[in-house]
């Protein structure tokens, strides 16, 4: 939503996102997709090569996009087993909204 607001006010944007399909639903201008866990949009800590590859993809998107809805997916496989990474990014405690939803489901 911030991307749309800023772009509508005259500043070009490029969005690097783990959910490029959702970014497309929001009709963002330039989308770079990364198949990374949440909280790690530019890659693994201290992996400069990975982070630079994502940054280069963002620059490529800026160079190539000629109309809104441009999408470029970065070809990097997250180097941690999926089931481990699936849990590792999640907070140690449920967020307040998730806790509230769980309580409602249990009828509390």
């Amino acid at each position: 939503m911030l991307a749309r607001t800023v772009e509508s006010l005259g500043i070009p944007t490029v969005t690097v996102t783990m959910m490029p399909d959702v970014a497309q639903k929001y009709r963002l201008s330039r989308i770079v997709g990364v198949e990374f866990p949440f909280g790690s949009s530019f890659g693994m800590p201290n992996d400069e090569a990975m982070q630079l590859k994502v940054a280069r993809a963002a620059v490529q998107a800026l160079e190539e996009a000629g109309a809104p809805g441009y999408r470029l997916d970065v070809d990097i496989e997250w180097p941690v087993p999926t089931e481990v990474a699936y849990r590792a990014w999640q907070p140690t405690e449920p967020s307040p909204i998730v806790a509230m939803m769980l309580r409602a489901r249990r009828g509390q």
Partner: protein
Amino acid sequence: MTVDSWKFLPRMMRPTFENLPAIAEPPVWTPLSRPVHRCTIALMSSAGVYLKDSQPSFDVEREKNEPTWGDPGYRIIPSDVRQDQVACSHLHLSNAGALEDVNVVFPIRAFRKLAAEAAIGKLADEHYSFMGYQQAGCESWRTNQGPELAARLKEHAVDVLLLAPA
């Protein structure tokens, strides 16, 4: 490779996001005013990063009391930020990656390298940190912080904003 948007999303949440309709509003588009290799680029993260010795954290206590509310404010992060200055306040994901290397959410080191290669013009002097959990509709972002950020970007002669949602 086509990115699987749902790969790391909690499985029970997938239908919610996958079945989202596209928004009714038309796309927005601003072309670049100059070639990328001459652009000043600012970075924005929604990982809840802040400078622990000089900035307040995002208001997670209020969010705990009002679970449908998220702090809409933002923090200014300088381009010479050091890892030992960084803290995170975000209740919806682990902050471990950013606390080990802030470049996973603020890729300043990578963009500094791109500037040295002349792939971009330069990094802006300041960058922006938000906390990505927001009240449905993001009304405050639309009406307050978004326009404020755009004005700030123009004041600092920023040509492009790169957003990296957490």
